[in-house]
C-alpha cells in the first residue's frame, strides 16, 4: 500500500468503524472487505473523501464461489457470492476495491444513488449471476434476451449452454 492508499483506508476506518471486516492487498490492488449493509456508506464516504475523491466507479462485478474446494488453494469463502466494486480516483490516480459477500437470494444495496455508472454494471451482475440490487431504478437483463431464464455465469449452468431449441425465438 502506498501513502495515499494507507491514508484513505485510515480515514475509511475512522468513518465506518467496525463495519470494515478486512483490508488486504493482492495482485489487483487494495481490497477493503465490508459488510453488505455497509456498502452504501462506504461508497458515500469514498466518493466524498476530501483528498482522494473516488469519482469513478469503473466496474461492479461478482464471483460465484459455489465450486470452491481445498484444491484451489484459496481461503474458504464465507458466502456464495462476492461482489466487487472497482473504484478509481481520477484526481489522485488511486484505485480501491470494495468487497462484500452475500448468499444466494440476498439482495445487495444498489450503488446507483452514488454513481450513475453503476446502472449497467449492476444490470450485468443481475443478468449473469441473478443477484438482485435493491433500489436500482431499472433492473432488467442487459446481455441476454428478456425471456432467458438462466443466470449463465453461475457455476451450475451447463458450460455448453442449454439446447438452442429450448430458447423461445422472438
Amino acid at each position, binding site marked *: 500500500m502506498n501513502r495515499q492508499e494507507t491514508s484513505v483506508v485510515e480515514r475509511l476506518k475512522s468513518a465506518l468503524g467496525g463495519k470494515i471486516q478486512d483490508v488486504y492487498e493482492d495482485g489487483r490492488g487494495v481490497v477493503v472487505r465490508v459488510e453488505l449493509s455497509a456498502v452504501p456508506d462506504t461508497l458515500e464516504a469514498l466518493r466524498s473523501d476530501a483528498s482522494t475523491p473516488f469519482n469513478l466507479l469503473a466496474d461492479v462485478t461478482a464471483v460465484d464461489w459455489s465450486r470452491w474446494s481445498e484444491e484451489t488453494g484459496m481461503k474458504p469463502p464465507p458466502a456464495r457470492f462476492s461482489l466487487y466494486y472497482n473504484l478509481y480516483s481520477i484526481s489522485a490516480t488511486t484505485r480501491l476495491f470494495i468487497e462484500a459477500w452475500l448468499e444466494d437470494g440476498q439482495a445487495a444495496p444498489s450503488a446507483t444513488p452514488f454513481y450513475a455508472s453503476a446502472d449497467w454494471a449492476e444490470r450485468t451482475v443481475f443478468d449473469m449471476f441473478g443477484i438482485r440490487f435493491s433500489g436500482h431504478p431499472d433492473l432488467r437483463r442487459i*446481455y*441476454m*434476451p428478456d425471456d*432467458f431464464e*438462466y443466470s*449463465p455465469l453461475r457455476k451450475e*449452468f451447463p*458450460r*455448453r*449452454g*442449454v439446447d*438452442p431449441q429450448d*430458447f423461445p*425465438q*422472438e
Partner: protein
Amino acid sequence: MTPTIERGPEGGFAVGPIDGLLNLARKHSLWYLLFGTACCAIELMQTGGPRTDTDRFGMVFRSTPRQADVLVLAGTISYKMASRIRLLYDQMAEPKYVIAMGSCANTGGLFQESYAVVKGGDLFLPVDVYIPGCPPRPESLCEGLMLIQQKIEREPWLKKAWGKYKSDKPDPMPTEGCEPLR
C-alpha cells in the same frame, strides 16, 4: 431461359422469355445490406473494396434493408441480436436471399459453446448459401454472391410472383361484360 443478344441493323437487341430478361436484370443488380455483427464484417467490407470489386457484377452495398436484396450474415449472432436480424430480414422486399458467411453464421463456430450465441443462422432465417471459413476470404464471399446469381438465373420468379398474386387476389382484369375500346 437465358436471353440471347442479337445484332440488328439499328443496334443490338435481346430475345428471350420475359422471365429470363427479368432475371438478367435482377442478377446484375444484386444489392447487399451493409450489415455485420462480428469480425466477418471486416471481410464483407473488404469484398466491397477495389481488389475483389463486386461492383463489376452490379453488387453494391445498401445501408437500408428496404433497398437490399441480399442479407449477408457476417459474424457471430447472439440471441439478442437474432431478433433484430429477423426484423431486418422482414423489412427487406421480396425477392430476398440470405448468405450465411463464416463458421459463426453457419454453426456458431468458435463460440458454439457460449450461452449467448445462436448455433447457426439457419435456425431463424432461410439461408440460401453457406460459406465456410473463419473468416472466409473476400473471394469466397464473392463466389457466394455469384452462386446467388446462378440461383436467380434459374428461378422462374415472374411465374412464382404471378401465381402468388393470383392466388391472393381476384383476377385483376375482369374481361366479361366490358365494352371493348374503339
